[in-house]
């Protein structure tokens, strides 16, 4: 196994996360895309920690990312709940009020 393989997996994860964010209309789907992207970044950090001189710093960084991801998931779920309360749906395309 080499660094390239990890990076490839990470790239695939990132691409699928992005695609997920762009295509899903369901708010929780968008949230899943965000999680995928975060995890791809995590994987990158771990891989660099293992194969380059980055060392332990990369792993610590990954831990931070996981913690922040958890916090972010809590906030995002709260937003989704409120969104539902206001619009009786979780379709992100229906929430375009800021346009005005």
């Amino acid at each position, binding site marked *: 196994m080499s660094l390239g393989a990890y990076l490839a997996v990470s790239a695939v994860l990132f691409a699928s996360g*992005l695609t997920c*964010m*762009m*295509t*899903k*209309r369901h708010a929780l789907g*968008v949230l899943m895309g965000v999680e995928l992207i975060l995890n791809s970044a995590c994987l990158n950090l771990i891989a660099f920690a293992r194969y380059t001189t980055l060392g332990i710093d990369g792993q610590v960084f990954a831990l931070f990312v996981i913690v922040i991801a958890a916090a972010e998931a809590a906030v995002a779920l709260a937003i989704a709940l409120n969104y539902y309360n206001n619009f009786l749906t979780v379709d*992100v*395309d229906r*929430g*375009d*009020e*800021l*346009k005005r």
Partner: protein
Amino acid sequence: MVADSLIIFCLTLAWLLPLAGCVVISVLRLKLSRLSAVPGWIGTGSLLVAFCLSLISAGVWLMTSPAETAALQASNVSDVAAHETGNLLQRRLVGHWYSLAKFGEIDFPLGYAIDALTVLMFVLVTMISLAVHAYSLVYMADEQTESYQDHHLDHSAGETSERPGRFAHFYAALGLFTFAMLGIVLAHGLLQIFVFWELVGFSSYLLIGFYHERRTARLASMKAFLMNRVGDVGFVLGMTILLATCGTLLLYPVHDLNGTTASSVPMALPEAFQAAVEKAVPSQAIHDQANLIPTEQGISYALLVAAGLGLLAGCVGKSAQFPLHPWLADAMEGPTPVSALVHSATMVAAGVYLAARIAPLLLPEALLLLAYVGVVTLLLGASMAIVARDLKLVLAHSTISQLGLMLLGIGVGAWEAAIFHLITHAFFKSLLFLGAGSVIHTTHHEQDLEKLGGLRAHLPLTSLTMLIGVIALSGLAVPYVTIFGESLGFSGFHSKDAIVSGTMAFVLKNPHHILLLISVLLGACLTAAYSLRLWLKLFARDTPVDPALQQVHEGPWLMTWPLVVLAFFAAFCALGGEEGFVSTLVEESLSPAPAWFSDSTGEVVSIQWTNASERHAVHGTAGAMALAAAWLGALIAWALYGLQAISSKDLSHQLTPLVRLASHRWHFDTLYRGFLVLPILNLARHTAWIDRILIDPFIDGCARLSERFSHASQWFDEAMINRFFDNMASSIWASGLSLRKAQTGHIRQYVLLATMAVIVLFLILFAWMPGDRAGP
């Protein structure tokens, strides 16, 4: 000490009260209806309190005896300046309230100088002003209306006869007038006197021009104002010279509260002036050097004479003396109570008062000139009074002539006699004016002596009080009869005697000025004649000449009581003559004669001055001569108008040129009109013409040019600057609108766009980043 501060407090309050009344009335005027009599009561009330305060301070003054003052002085006490002068002890409270300005050594403070004369003048002024205030409550009552009908207007000149009444206005101006006069009396420096001097002029302008719908009243007030200004130019010049030579304008030295020694007290004018005179350079020597700048030796003597003459010019203007006398007769245009005030205690009295106060600053030349000015005015005024047909005009000319007598008194060095006469004159002249006002009021503004007459039965009180006034004015007395050691004569007899004896003593020492004595006696004769003529014309016959006057009767008590009170004082205020109460007080307070006064040091003229004892020695002779002259005049008047033994018409035919000259007021008005008024009007007209021809077009051109320029600038603004900014704004607006389309509100679209942007950025980075292209 307590007494002193009480006097100072009382007089200051009495001085400020009329002003307070004036201010209150001016403010209340906006709220009150024109029908209200409240302003009159406010004014009268403030004067009543002021009068009481003056009386209190006079009482305190008299109770604190000179001996006590001397003891205080000996123990080095503060602001009592007592000088031992002969056997008289001068007592004077001098102090500062506030310093207006200080330029190095020269200080301009506001302060007070109180001596016996000040207290006396305060009582006099507030009393007469109070009488006038009370009297005006009735006399001016017809002003309490929304539409006052003015019957004296000249309708042909297009003057409208209806106007709102001005009762409050009248009382405000009266209060201001009294305040200004009291200010002169209280002031301790020439500058402060000058301020109130001008305020008197201004408020008299307001009062003389009270009926300003009448053209004559407007002209009269202007005339009074302008003629006073002519004199005031001299006043300012005199002050300037004094300030330059003496370095101070204070009349009396101020002792500060620590009771410092005399050396640290700044010199006052009399001493400083005396020092300047001693160092003065003969004017001939200065003339050779052809400059008037003060040298090390001293200032030119001529300049010092000029200082005195300048101050006297102010007095001459204010006291209506030759050649500035015509304004006083015209000042009759004001309401009659105002005339009573102007002619007795306030305005014209200020001139004589100041002349007496500055007498130590007058050099022999100035004094002699003053004596001659006085004597000329005495005769001029008397001659005009004897032919005048208007009731008030007789009194006005009489005032001019009596003021001439007072200035003559100052000129011959008998200034305490002059002030004595000023005080007695104030009483009987205000009495006569208020009596005249009573006649005028009850006869509905009839002032022509030929139409009035025979009013004695209808106006008993007025006729009696005016008889007292007339006798006092003419100085009549019963010769060689005394009751309780008093000669049988009213106040004018005593004071006139004092001046005549002063003149006589002067003439005895300087025989070539005999003309002064002859003129004074002639003046006494004429005075008796015209004053008796006035009374006989008004009251002699039993029935009115004019049947329209049958219904005439006395006015209400507010009009008659002032007459009675003033008549009492006109009769008895000079009790005791020159040893009497009033005269002693006056004598006590006037400055002692300067050292150079006893010997004749004049440069141009040489004069022997007299002293009080010399004057007293000739008192008997002088009094007898004056009395004889007065009786002669009275008998002539009696023969002409009382008995009608001689026809007055025939007599005036015999003396046609003289009568005509006098009734045209010696053509002074014509003279001034020809030589001053018309040339000045012409000059004004030509200046106006130059204005129209040259200056107006120039200004118009400038205006037009700037108008053009602003038009051009407006075009530039609109076409260039505004359009530029408008275009810029609209293009920004348009771009904003177009950018708005990108904001769809679809989150997924934003994500897509962001992704695309990142990709594009990466592409650009990889395409353009130098160096790293090769990669690993």
